[in-house]
């Protein structure tokens, strides 16, 4: 980026407007056809209107570039929004960037950014904080939901703003480089390890299935499969197997709704027959 030669056309205010529009509207019109594409278009409106104030034809062209499909983890996606704003600005300054380049940068980054974002935020931060907060709240601690919410506000705004500004200032090369070199991979594999361990603990703490089968051994002794077999060896073995089974089904491509219906079916059959209980 040769910003040193060209005076930037977008002021700090314009950028903030673009960021806030994205932050608040990315899923305002979430739809199966474009997903967050409509929200992305919306966030580009302040940019296009500023860059092509006089030229309606060019303003239309600029916005037309962003009517496509877009779907990403919203917090980390703000870096793509910032970067796109920078590309539009350079284009307006006369840099030779063709329309395809803008689209391909957008669609090229949305996969990796979702990968990082979903792993870090939905995979680690949220389940971990929720587990802490729920532990406290179950006994009626009303401060817990409030503190949880405040932390999440800080996380979302912090990541989103930092990402947006980084995307805008450093450009696509910097983001691609960052994706390629070790730092991001390190963060992801660290997050994976932490997340896996936390999820393992969640299975042990919060998934509950137990076997209700009792076998009559003799007139006065009953063999309970759960208490005398499972609990003696590995108490939470059924929740573990259930979770791994669900994971396998999802991995095979069964939709989450379908798996949920399987669980309901198993619960109905197991609950009524007394196999589970």
């Amino acid at each position, binding site marked *: 980026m040769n910003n040193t030669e060209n005076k930037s056309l977008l002021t700090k205010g314009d950028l903030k407007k673009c960021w806030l529009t994205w*932050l*608040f*509207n*990315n899923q*305002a*019109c*979430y*739809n*199966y056809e474009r*997903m967050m594409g*409509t929200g992305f*278009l*919306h966030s580009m*409106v302040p940019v296009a209107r500023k860059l092509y104030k006089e030229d309606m034809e060019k303003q239309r062209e600029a*916005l037309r570039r962003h*009517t496509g499909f877009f*779907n990403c983890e919203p917090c980390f996606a703000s870096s793509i929004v910032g970067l796109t704003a920078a590309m539009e600005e350079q284009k307006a300054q006369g840099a030779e960037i063709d329309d395809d380049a803008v689209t391909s940068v957008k669609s090229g980054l949305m996969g990796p950014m979702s*990968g990082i974002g*979903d*792993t870090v935020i939905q*995979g680690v931060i949220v*389940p*971990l904080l*929720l*587990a802490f907060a729920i532990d406290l*709240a*179950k006994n*009626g601690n*009303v401060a*817990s*939901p*409030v503190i949880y*919410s405040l932390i*999440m506000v800080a996380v979302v*705004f912090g990541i989103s703003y930092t990402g947006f500004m980084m995307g805008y200032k450093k450009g696509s090369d910097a983001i691609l480089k960052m994706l390629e070199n070790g730092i991001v991979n390190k963060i992801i*594999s660290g997050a*994976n*390890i*932490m*997340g*896996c*361990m*936390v*999820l*393992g*603990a*969640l*299975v042990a703490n919060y998934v*509950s299935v137990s076997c209700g089968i009792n076998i009559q051994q003799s007139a006065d002794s009953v063999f309970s499969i759960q208490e005398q077999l499972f609990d003696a060896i590995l108490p*939470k073995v059924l*929740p573990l197997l*259930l*979770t791994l089974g669900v*994971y396998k089904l999802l991995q095979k491509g069964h939709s*989450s709704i379908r798996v*949920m219906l399987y669980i309901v079916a198993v*619960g109905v059959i197991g*609950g009524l027959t007394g196999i*589970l*209980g």
Partner: protein
Amino acid sequence: MSVLQAMILGVIYYLGNSSVVAGPIGYYTIYRPLVGGFLTGLVLGDPVTGTMIGATINLMYIGFISAGGALPGDMCLAGILGAALGITGGLDTEAALAIAVPIGLIGTLLWFGRLTLDSAFAHLADKFVEKGQGNKVWIADLLLPQLMLFFMTAIPCFLASYFGASYIQGAIDALGGNVLSVLIVIGGMMPALGIGLTLMYIFKGEAKIFFFVGFLITVYLNLSMIAVGFLALCAAIIYMQIKNTAKGGAVNE
């Protein structure tokens, strides 16, 4: 429950679903039964019970992850209605959890309906762009879909909380203990789905073994979640350090 209280609950449900008014954090806060239950409790004058019921219902959805627009279960509706019916109907938390299971299932219909109908507004946005009316894109992206969302969410939630409470106790009695216990069994298994979904993202390569480490230390040592959280952080750091030394050695030869 007064009409006003039920209306406020409807609005809370809308806010949990809307990224606009509640801001981008709605999905992470109000949408969670932990927070939704607390807010419902505040409205109904019993925040402590609301928080406790919300937390219990949230357990069911603890690892829930929404990715690629698929949302398995409407935890926001389950949290608000579960807490509301629990408080006004005087149900215990287990019964409230049992009601929350079917509510969460039904709620997903709203989500599908919304994402399907929103496509029409995406085309409206295209039209504004083609006409060179960029300043009107907000009508298609923000105003109309949010108005639609408001009616789709606030009204059903208002009706269910206002009329639900008087019927819920009767309904549960009519269903009998069997249905209740089946629903509790289902509720106990549901967290496996959320955790399984999250595993799709992080259960990879060398991290896999740590899932079992976390499971085993919790089962055998009875550690709290906070303890496991800190241990997990240390485990991640130690693992990275060992890996770095191994790599460093290879490079230096």
